[in-house]
């Protein structure tokens, strides 16, 4: 009797592993052991074309990995904030940012930049000072990498 149970358990385990292996094959970016992929995108340039290119990269990133499997943050400092200024008058850019936020992407801006460049926070599209501000953009990126976030600067 014990033997039968052992075989049944073994079969169940094997089947379980088998199916999870198949599931993992479907999406190579999802860990078998759970947990999200952690990524930080670094934005410190003001070229609008390049900024939009970055948002496109992020969109494709989400498509490949799946929003629920992803903890993706955009950290802006230096000239990166200009993207939020441009978005005030650029409807397409607005839509892109909003749809990314809906998928759980966080856009964070450096407090040093806000202070240094004397930015008006109300003039930054969708910026929520309570949640979207980090004390130092560079230190935040360093901190995230220490926590296992991959660094991407398209």
């Amino acid at each position, binding site marked *: 009797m014990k033997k039968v149970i052992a075989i049944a358990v073994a079969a169940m385990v094997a089947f379980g592993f088998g199916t999870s292996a198949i599931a993992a094959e479907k999406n190579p970016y999802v860990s078998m052991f759970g947990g999200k992929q952690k990524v930080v995108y*670094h934005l410190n340039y003001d070229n609008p074309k390049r900024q939009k290119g970055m948002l496109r990269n992020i969109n494709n990133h989400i498509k490949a990995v799946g929003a629920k499997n992803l903890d993706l943050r955009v950290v802006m400092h230096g000239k990166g904030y200009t993207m939020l200024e441009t978005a005030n008058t650029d409807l397409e850019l607005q839509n892109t940012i909003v749809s990314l936020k809906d998928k759980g992407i966080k856009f964070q801006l450096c407090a040093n930049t806000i202070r240094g460049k004397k930015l008006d926070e109300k003039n930054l599209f969708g910026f929520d000072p309570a949640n979207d501000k980090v*004390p*130092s953009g*560079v230190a935040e*990126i*360093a*901190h995230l990498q*220490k926590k296992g976030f991959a*660094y991407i*600067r398209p």
Partner: protein
Amino acid sequence: MNDKINVSDEMLNAFVDGQLVTEEKEQLYVSLAKDDDMKKTVCELRSCKDLVQMAYQQLPESSGGSSDGGVPGGNGARHWISGIAASVLLAVGVFVGWQLGPMQTNEVIHSASGMRGATNALAVADDDSTKVLFHLNTRNPEVAREALDELEGVLKFYKRTGQKARIELITNGGGIDLLRRETSPYPDRILALQKKYKNLTFVTCQNTIDRLKSEQGVTAHLLPGTVVIDSGVAQIMRRQQEGWAYIQV
């Protein structure tokens, strides 16, 4: 008078094996600091010793622990002694790297083991400190200024918040121009930053220096304090493997 002291190979070997008494060691450090060839020999001996140790290393057993019940007494004692030897070797290695490192500014460090010495010299930092590597590969003065702004900003931030940190700026390609005496747009600022922040290092790449020479016939003269490493790209990989955060400017 010749400054160089004649040091025999036996002496160097004993030094690497950690068998010298304190006075002998002190004397050797002094001669090492003056003699580049000797430095190289010690590096080679050390890497040789490391390789031998690695080849003969027993399977997972901590250097201090001979608690394995199955091992006969004599064997255990031998493990213990080799453990001490290894620790002494490590301590000597770190100390030599630490002692020699700062003197080797503007001087390339050869060979794999030498590179480890260089890494030590640049990263004496405690493990709990935050380490950030900035990467500059363009000669655009505006981007270079942003790089300096950013690293100064983060140095200030860590100082203000009382966090231990080490910052390194690695330059390759056009980025080297920032650290060349003949081209740097901000030499005074770089010197002032170095003076103010002891945890900041400016680094450039030997490959880039060589390429300037071979492609443009230009000899690079670097600002004082600039450290030269073999390859910028390799350094970036090493640093990330060592737990440094990477930020491209």
